[in-house]
């Protein structure tokens, strides 16, 4: 009798122990897979720990990371997707909502990459930076059509200049400008070959103008008027 009880206890203990070991092995595999995406060990460990703390199974965590793996396979930047997962988990958001937000970002990344690749032949240089900035601007509400028009402008295609202009476009969109107004201002910046500092100053002028209660037309009408021409007008 005693022998039977001892055997039963041993059997009952062996099953969960095996499950724990198997689960731990799966988490290790998941960690290794994320490391292959080019994410640092410290970040992967922290996110995996957050997943376990939030009670996710390995399968759920793997599903959460799927957009990162997809981006890696499609030669898209993975960094901003992993950041979205980190942000969601840090803010205590349900993993399914984090997954949706990361999926939305992946979709924006795909569109952004397609828009840039339509006018460029390769992914070299600052391609990924520009794609990420376009992705963020689209996530903030700017339509793909705006970028299709911006990138098909005649003339040179300078990544550094475009990145600043796209950043400005996102800020103006978040201020409430329509797509056509944002495109107009972005084209203005490129027409005038503005430096990054000048582009940021232009955004400041809009933001200060909105705080003072001015509308787009009022601000835009005075935007490119130089002090000398103002004095001659008077």
């Amino acid at each position, binding site marked *: 009798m005693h022998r039977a009880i001892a055997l039963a206890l041993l059997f009952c203990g062996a099953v969960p122990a095996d499950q724990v070991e198997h689960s731990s092995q799966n988490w290790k595999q998941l960690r290794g897979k994320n490391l292959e995406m080019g994410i640092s060990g410290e970040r992967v460990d922290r996110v995996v720990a957050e997943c376990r703390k939030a009670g996710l199974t390995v399968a759920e965590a793997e599903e959460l990371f799927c957009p990162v793996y997809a981006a890696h396979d499609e030669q898209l930047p993975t960094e901003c997707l992993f950041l979205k997962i*980190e*942000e969601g*988990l*840090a*803010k205590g958001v349900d993993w399914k909502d984090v997954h949706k937000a990361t999926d*939305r970002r992946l979709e924006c990344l795909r569109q952004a990459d397609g828009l840039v690749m339509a006018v460029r032949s390769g992914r070299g240089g600052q391609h990924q930076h520009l794609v990420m900035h376009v992705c963020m601007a689209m996530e903030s509400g700017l339509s793909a059509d705006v970028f299709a028009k911006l990138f098909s402008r005649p003339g040179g295609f300078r990544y550094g200049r475009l990145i600043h202009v796209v*950043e400005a476009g996102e800020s103006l969109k*978040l201020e409430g400008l329509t797509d056509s107004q944002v495109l107009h201002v972005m084209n203005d910046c490129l027409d005038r070959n503005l*430096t990054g500092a000048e582009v940021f100053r232009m955004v400041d002028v809009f933001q200060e103008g909105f705080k003072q209660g001015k509308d787009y037309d009022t601000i835009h009408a005075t935007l490119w008027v130089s002090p000398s021409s103002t004095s001659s007008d008077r």
Partner: protein
Amino acid sequence: MHDHDHLEQRLSQHRTQAPEGFADRVMESLPTWRKSERRGWWPAHGRWVAPALAGAAAMFFIMLAVPPLHSSEQAGEVVFHFELHAPGADKVELLGTFNNWKSGDIVLQGPDASGHWTASVELPEGRHEYIFLVDGDRWVTDPKGATHRPDGFGQVNTVIKVYDEDNA
């Protein structure tokens, strides 16, 4: 004719012998350091001191001219000042894209007499998003930030573009 050629040959080979003791007298008249034999490439008798001092002085001035590697103005890093008015708070943290949304990584100093919490953080150049976490459970958007952006989770992040003036 044959005698003439023979005489010419003898004259061309003629050498006058130096007086006896001449070599010794020359060596005695030389300064001491010229007599010693040079060994190896290293300058003897302290003649390395002047070039070495000149080299050290040159290195000193070069090091003064070149900025230190870890200064706040190192390439791609810009110091940004964060501030939040939260007089009743016990703890204010800063989470953003620059610290991979890591909780506990940047804790603001404060509050000062007027209830302000502050932190100066070295940020890589580029576009960043951030939000404050007050007392570990309250997400607060920076009211002083110029650009605000919904995070898709029901909160609003602040967007900043940080560039060194030379690179903007």
